[in-house]
C-alpha cells in the first residue's frame, strides 16, 4: 500500500515524538502518585506544576487558573454545566451559537431539560456569528455566553474579542471552546476577555484523553468531579501525570513552531482551495476565506454524497472527513453546514481536509487529482447530475 496521506488533523493529530519522549519516564520511572509524600510522588507533582505553568504562560494566564481534564468535551461540559449551576440564582439564560461542537450543544440541550433557557445565535453564510443577534439576545438573566473560538468543520474563526467585550460590558461570563484554535493561533485570555476556555491535547500533537479548562480567578464554579483535593478540589481523581506532561510538551512544541507551522499550512491549504475551485465544477468553499484556521479546507460538491467520496479517497490512501449524514450516523447532515444555509443535498456532498505542517505540496496535488477523478466517477453515477445535465441541454 502507498503511504497514507493524512488530511484529518481536525479529527486528531499524530502524537509528536518529543511528546512521547517526554511522557515515557512518567510511566516507567516517575510513576508515583502526585499526592504522595515521598520523592517519587513529589517528582510527579513537580512535573504537573511545571506543565500547569507552561500552559498558563501560553494563554497569558496564571497557573492556578488552569485545571486539567480528560479532554475538550469534559472541559466544555464542566464550563457550561458548573456555571449554570453556580449562577442559577442570578439567572437561567444561556447564549450560544448554532454551530457549536456537540460537547457544548448537547450540554445546552441537557440544561434546557433542567429548566434553563438557551438562545442559539445564527451565523452568516460564511459561518461568522451574527454579533447584532447576540447583542439583542442578551437579557438581565443571562449568565453565560459560550461561543467557540474556531469551528471544527468549516474552520471559521469567530469574532471572539467582540463577543468578550459584550460579555464584559454586560457582566456575563464568557466561555469559549478553543479545541480547534488553541495551539494554532495565539490566544490572550485578557485581551479577548475570556473567562473560561476549553482545550484538548490530541488536536495539537499531544496525547488523547488530555485537556484543560482555564477558569479566570474569582469565578464562582462548582466542582466537576467530587473526591480528593486534586485540581484545587474541583476535579478530583489521581492526575494523569504522563498525559499532563505530554500535553505540556505538545503545547511547548505548538507555540515554538506556530509561526512556521502556520505559514506552511496556509500554503498547503491555499493550494488545495485554489486547485479545487479552478478544476472541479459545481463546488463551493464552505467557511470564510480570510477568517479561517490555517489548516482547514471544506468544500461541498454538488450531485455527490460524502461517504462515497470518503471511501474512494480511503482506497487511494487519503484520510479525510465529511459532514454527510452517513458519516454522522443520522439522517441529517452536519448542523454546521445547514446553519450556513446549505441545502441538505449540498451538505451531504461535503468534504473536510485538514492539513498539518508535515504534509507536502506533492500530497496536495495528488489529493486534488484523486478528488477530481472520484467526483467525475460519482457524478457519472448520480441521477441528480444526469437530471442537471439534461436540464442544461434542454432535454428535461
Amino acid at each position, binding site marked *: 500500500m502507498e503511504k497514507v496521506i493524512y488530511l484529518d488533523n481536525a479529527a486528531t493529530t499524530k502524537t509528536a515524538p518529543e511528546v512521547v519522549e517526554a511522557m515515557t519516564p512518567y510511566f516507567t520511572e516517575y510513576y508515583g502518585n502526585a499526592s504522595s509524600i515521598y520523592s517519587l510522588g513529589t517528582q510527579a507533582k513537580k512535573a504537573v506544576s511545571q506543565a500547569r505553568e507552561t500552559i498558563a504562560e501560553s494563554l497569558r494566564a496564571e497557573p492556578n487558573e488552569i485545571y486539567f481534564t480528560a479532554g475538550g468535551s469534559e472541559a466544555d461540559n464542566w464550563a457550561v454545566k458548573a456555571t449554570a449551576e453556580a449562577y442559577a440564582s442570578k439567572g437561567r439564560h444561556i447564549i450560544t451559537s448554532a454551530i457549536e461542537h456537540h460537547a457544548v450543544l448537547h450540554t445546552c440541550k441537557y440544561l434546557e431539560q433542567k429548566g434553563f433557557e438557551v438562545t442559539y445565535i445564527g451565523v452568516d453564510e460564511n459561518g461568522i456569528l451574527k454579533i447584532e443577534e447576540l447583542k439583542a439576545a442578551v437579557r438581565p438573566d443571562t449568565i453565560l455566553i459560550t461561543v467557540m473560538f474556531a469551528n471544527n468543520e468549516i474552520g471559521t474563526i469567530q469574532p471572539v474579542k467582540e463577543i468578550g467585550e459584550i460579555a464584559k460590558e454586560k457582566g456575563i461570563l464568557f466561555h469559549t471552546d478553543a479545541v480547534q484554535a488553541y495551539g494554532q493561533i495565539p490566544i490572550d485570555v485578557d485581551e479577548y476577555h475570556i473567562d473560561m476556555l476549553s482545550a484538548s491535547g490530541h488536536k495539537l500533537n499531544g496525547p488523547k484523553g488530555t485537556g484543560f479548562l482555564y477558569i479566570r480567578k474569582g469565578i464562582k464554579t462548582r466542582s466537576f468531579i467530587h473526591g480528593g483535593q486534586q485540581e484545587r478540589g474541583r476535579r478530583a481523581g489521581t492526575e494523569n501525570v504522563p498525559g499532563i506532561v505530554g500535553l505540556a510538551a505538545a503545547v511547548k512544541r505548538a507555540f515554538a513552531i506556530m509561526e512556521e507551522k502556520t505559514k506552511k499550512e496556509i500554503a498547503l491549504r491555499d493550494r488545495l482551495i485554489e486547485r479545487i475551485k479552478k478544476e472541479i465544477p459545481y463546488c463551493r468553499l464552505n467557511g470564510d476565506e480570510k477568517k479561517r484556521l490555517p489548516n482547514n479546507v471544506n468544500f461541498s460538491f454538488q450531485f455527490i454524497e460524502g461517504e*462515497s467520496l470518503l471511501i474512494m479517497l480511503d*482506497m487511494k490512501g487519503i484520510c479525510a472527513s465529511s459532514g*454527510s449524514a452517513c458519516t454522522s450516523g443520522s439522517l441529517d447532515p452536519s448542523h454546521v453546514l445547514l446553519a450556513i444555509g446549505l441545502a441538505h*443535498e449540498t451538505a451531504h456532498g461535503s468534504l473536510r481536509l485538514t492539513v498539518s505542517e508535515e504534509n507536502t505540496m506533492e500530497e496536495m496535488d495528488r489529493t486534488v487529482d484523486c478528488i477530481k477523478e472520484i467526483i467525475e466517477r460519482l457524478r*457519472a*453515477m448520480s441521477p441528480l447530475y*444526469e437530471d442537471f445535465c439534461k436540464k442544461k441541454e434542454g432535454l428535461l
Partner: protein
Amino acid sequence: MYSEKVMDHFSNPRNMGEIEEASGVGTVGNAKCGDIMRMYLDIDENGVIQDCKFKTFGCGAAIATSSMATELVKGKTVEQALAVTNKAVMEALDGLPPVKVHCSLLAEEAIHAALWDYAQKNHIEIEGLQKPKSDIHEGEEEPEEEY
C-alpha cells in the same frame, strides 16, 4: 464496516448507467436524506428483463445495493423481479450495517418503481405491485442551488 462484497460492488458497480428508451424507469429516495436511486429496465415482449441499469446518489451501501439489485433482476420475469426483496439484496451482499438497511429497502423500492412505470406505459396490471411509496419529488420544496 462494509463486507467485502459490498466493497466490491461499490468499487466496481455492475450495470451502472442509463438505458435509452427504457421499458420502465423508477426513481426513489430523497436528496434531503442523502440517497436517490434510479432504475432502468429493458423488458421484452415476453415480460423478461433483458437489461437493467442504475444511477445512484448516495453512500457506499446505496451504490452497492443498487448494483446488486440490478444483478438480481436481470434475466428474470417481471413477476420474479417483483419477488426480489431487500432481504435478498442484503443477503447477496453478505449483510449491511444496521444503519444502512434502509439502502436495501430503497433498492427494492426502485425496482418496484421501474416496474410500475413499465406497467403504466403498457396499460397492464402486475399482480402484487403497488404504486411506489417514495418519490424523488416528495418533500422537495426548494430548487437546487448552483454555483
